[in-house]
């Protein structure tokens, strides 16, 4: 831009053509910003909101003006002190959450403006432009925050000019791209790819069913210029990039699916076998399936069914099941394994490993889905999730989705929705009641309702106006997409019914909602329904040890997933909110330490709950999709669990030191947000 040309003279902002020049517009806006910040700074806290509007409005104009963002950044060190964030969720810089940035930047209204100002403020902290006493965030934390934010928003750092990105980037996409250009320039991209690849590996280790976000991250990461990348990191990334798109030499050569299909026809058995093996290795390593894999599976089904076991990467158990159910498997492949649904190949492999097709209710349920009459809105919702029009039917998507959930029960995720309860349910039923899950899915897809009994009354989801979610984020697997709206409504209605009872409503709702797999014994740390006061924490911990710790519970292993409530904390140990996970098992890890293995429906990669509590997802004996924590660390974040009163061991035997340790850790983290009795 021509910033220097208007300096010096008292330009009134019009060049020869009569239109104001960009530089003079920025100059004008900047002097207005200074005045607005001054007024804001002078205002008392209760009146700041009057003056914030002016700042936001001028900031928005600067965000959209050529050279305006740098000008805005030049004042960023004053934002906090002036009160730009007073009265809103951005107030305390130390409480900012990297995962929330993207949503605000892509939103409408004033949010993207405030979010941008907040990023600029953090950038000023990171660059040492804010005095240490003037902010709650340290310089190191600011740098780390921005690195995380960059890793989560690669689309703005390396934008692609596709229609999809233009739409998904939100109304402020252009200024978001400028913002990240500025952050990248100031912070540097050096550690970026390593961070991103870490995140990709962490997410992939959990083997999510819905791989859209993972694939997007992989694609974004491959845009990072080669000179900014260490070779070892690039190699790790390449594994995922290949798995998502072209894991074999032939698929690399023929990216066009039709050409690839033709080439497969000319392959002899040995070549086909080799191709199938490469695909199978690639999924087993990454959990990602390339569209070409679906073409191969279809080819194998038609030409060499004996290779199907190889193409699916099955072991002895899976092969035995395949042999017994070959006819059904071929039929399902024909309907549901398509380039658009390639990810379901991994699900199908899981279904065979778990011998699910030998259960008659599962076989019947899946076949019913093939020709089910779908509600028109269900059909629309399913088809709307496709990346492009490819002729696939909504039924095919639903069958593929069901295969994925049944094959990978721990890969269910809640997406960007507050529906951990529903995700947890789908996961539980796909493990222990697959017939029931399919029955609900069929009812939701065909009849537009799900029914559940609650305390002698039959509740119909179609009679309930709304649940917790007002607008479902549709970045979900097909089964969740269809079921979650119903489950969410049923769950909220049940919680409403028990809202006035004297104890935590989950006590009654969980067994009714999830079914007979949840024991009726229930313990919570909260003494009141409003959940503001923690009482008798030591009794609570004793009971958990006596029912779950093998040294005190008389060796009763967990039979079914136990829905428990956690108080989630951030990396500094500050309370964020309640979250639902399922305990899956308790056992010794390879290093001899006792751990709790659990299912966390939020599919998050890096998790840091502060004070050294970092759930791990691999390397400590976890199966794919499991998270784990050392036993005592888990207890420090626990606030509610179910148990079978007849399987309670020796609560009295739990040593007082253990109780004290746990209580201290709880009080020092989430407990700070509550009163204790």
């Amino acid at each position, binding site marked *: 831009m021509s910033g220097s040309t208007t300096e010096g003279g008292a330009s009134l902002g019009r060049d020869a053509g009569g239109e*104001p020049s960009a530089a003079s517009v920025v100059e004008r806006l900047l002097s207005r910003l200074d005045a607005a910040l001054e007024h804001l700074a002078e*205002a008392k806290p*209760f*009146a700041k909101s*009057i003056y914030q509007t002016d700042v936001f*409005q*001028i900031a*928005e104009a600067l965000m959209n003006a050529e050279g305006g963002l740098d000008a805005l950044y030049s004042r960023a060190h004053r934002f906090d002190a002036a009160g730009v964030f007073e009265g809103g969720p951005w107030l305390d810089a130390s409480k900012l959450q990297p995962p929330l940035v993207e949503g605000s930047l892509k939103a*409408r209204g004033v949010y993207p403006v405030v979010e941008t100002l907040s990023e600029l403020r953090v950038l000023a902290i990171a660059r040492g432009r804010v005095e240490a006493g003037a902010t709650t965030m340290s310089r190191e934390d600011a740098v780390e925050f921005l690195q995380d934010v960059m890793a989560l928003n690669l689309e703005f750092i390396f934008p692609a000019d596709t229609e999809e990105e233009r739409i998904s980037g939100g*109304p402020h996409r252009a200024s978001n791209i400028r913002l990240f250009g500025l952050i990248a320039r100031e912070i540097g991209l050096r550690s970026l790819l390593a961070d991103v690849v870490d995140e990709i590996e962490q997410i992939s280790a959990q083997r999510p069913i819905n791989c859209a976000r993972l694939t997007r991250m992989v694609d974004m990461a491959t845009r990072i210029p080669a000179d900014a990348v260490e070779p070892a990191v690039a190699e790790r990334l390449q594994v995922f990039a290949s798995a998502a798109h072209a894991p074999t030499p032939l698929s690399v050569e023929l990216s066009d699916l039709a050409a690839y299909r033709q080439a497969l026809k000319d392959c002899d058995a040995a070549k086909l076998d080799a191709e199938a093996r490469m695909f199978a290795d690639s999924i087993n390593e990454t959990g990602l399936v390339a569209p070409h894999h679906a073409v191969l599976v279809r080819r194998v089904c038609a030409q060499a069914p004996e290779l199907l076991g190889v193409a699916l990467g099955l072991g002895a158990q899976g092969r035995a099941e395949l042999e017994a159910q070959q006819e059904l498997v071929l039929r399902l492949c024909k309907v549901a394994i398509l380039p658009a649904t390639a990810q379901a190949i991994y699900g199908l492999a899981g279904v065979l490993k778990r011998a699910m097709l030998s259960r008659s209710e599962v076989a019947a349920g899946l076949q019913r889905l093939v020709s089910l009459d779908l509600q028109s809105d269900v059909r629309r919702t399913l088809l709307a999730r496709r990346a492009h029009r490819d002729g696939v039917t909504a039924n095919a998507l639903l069958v593929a989705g069901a295969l994925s959930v049944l094959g990978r029960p721990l890969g269910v995720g809640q997406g960007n929705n507050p529906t951990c309860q529903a995700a947890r349910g789908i996961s539980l039923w796909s493990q222990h009641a697959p017939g029931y899950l399919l029955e609900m899915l069929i009812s939701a897809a065909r009849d537009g309702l799900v029914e559940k009994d609650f305390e002698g009354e039959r509740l119909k989801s179609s009679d309930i106006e709304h649940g917790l979610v007002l607008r479902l984020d549709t970045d979900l697997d097909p089964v969740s997409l269809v079921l979650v709206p119903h489950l969410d409504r049923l769950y909220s209605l049940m919680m409403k019914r028990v809202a006035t009872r004297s104890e935590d409503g989950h006590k009654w709702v969980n067994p009714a909602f999830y079914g007979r797999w949840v024991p009726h014994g229930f313990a919570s740390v909260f003494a009141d329904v409003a959940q503001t006061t923690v009482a008798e924490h030591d009794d609570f911990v004793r009971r958990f040890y006596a029912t779950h710790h093998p040294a005190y519970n008389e060796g009763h292993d967990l039979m079914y997933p136990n829905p428990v409530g956690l108080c989630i904390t951030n990396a500094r140990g500050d309370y964020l909110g309640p979250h639902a996970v399922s305990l899956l098992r308790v056992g010794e890890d390879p290093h001899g330490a006792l751990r709790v293995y659990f299912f966390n429906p939020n599919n998050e990669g890096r998790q840091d709950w502060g004070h050294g509590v970092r759930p791990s997802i691999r390397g400590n004996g976890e199966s794919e999709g499991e998270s784990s924590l050392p036993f005592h660390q888990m207890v420090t974040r626990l606030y509610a669990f179910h148990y079978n009163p007849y399987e309670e061991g020796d609560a009295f035997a739990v040593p007082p030191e253990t109780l004290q340790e746990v209580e201290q850790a709880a009080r020092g983290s989430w407990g700070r947000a509550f009163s204790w009795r």
Partner: protein
Amino acid sequence: MSNNGKQAPRTALLGFCIPAMEALDKVGRPFLAVVPPEFEAYMQEHDIAHVLWDFSRVNETSMQLSKTLQERGVEVAVPLFEETVEWAGAVNGFLRDDPRLFTRYLLFRDKAMMKRRAQMYGIRVGVFEEADNREDVSRFFKRVNKALSKLDSDVADPVHLKPLAAAGCVGHRFIRSEQDIAVLQDDEFPCLLETHLDGQEFSCEVFIHDSKIRFLNITEYVHLGHSNFVPASPSLEERRPYVRKAVEELIDAFGIQYGMIHPEFFITSDNKINFGEVAARVPGGHIFELIEKAYGFSPFVAFAMCSDPATTDEELAAYLPDERQHKDYAGCLMVYPRQKIVTRVDVPDRLIADDYYEKHALFQPVTPKVAERAGFGDHYGTVYFRGDNSARMRDLLLEYEQVDFYTSDAPAAS
């Protein structure tokens, strides 16, 4: 503050209004805010003296507000919003032991009643009638046009329809044909019907103490509900003596002693003034902001001072400037979306570069679909102007009234 350390009586502000609280706080005038219960957390967080009150509920416990305020040492209640006007009447009547005060405040809440009162005191008003249903409207519309000796083939003269008790332009409709009458909803009745008044429309913000005008501002309406500025242009200001006389007649007719009123008038080219309506709360159209910019004093503070019988003439004289000594013309444009779907805000660069442009508060709407408006609804955003020439101010407001600030990326749905 000019009260030389004398402890000012505590003022109760009726309604939650941050600019009002800030204005009083700035001049060190102690106040207490009476706010609806949903603002409790805000008041507590900022440690502001307050009483929680649900203004929408009138019942046998309503007296309690007056008593509570008296116990808290309040001497004067200042109504900020239309819905709080009768509460101010009740509280002030109780505190001053003058029951008639309440009934006088009630006049401000019924547009037909206030017109009748004005008419009884010889003030020029249009022909008006209360209507309970569509038939009433139809009859009034026909009779007015008959009285104007209109033929069936002539274009009918429009009549105005307003709810009896709503602020400003809310629910204001033009009736131009039987078609307009047919679409009226049952919940729009009862309402006020009145003939269309010719002449230039303007409003006054009159600060009254001891029944005397202490400051009279004239706000010029470029287009009612869309654009206005302060002070009025010289051609209207020249006629200030006529305006002042009309306002004095109004003060007399309504028996107003203390506070501020916001009447609307129409003035004809031969200086005949017709009375439109009058309110006793903070005016809309950002008028208080404009007055503050144009004259350099806070109308909120002036409102509070004038509401208080204990304020001295000296204090008023020290605080209020000369009506003829404005610093600038301050105007604003209230912007409404013109399309049904809006996704973007487009502010022309030439506006931002204009010397008279001050600021705007236009943000991209959170939902793209524009809410259906019946009559005049709330505007979506505001553009502020400031400069030293009223003609240029008027031209700018007219020019930017034509600009479509809210646009859509998607093709507009039809």
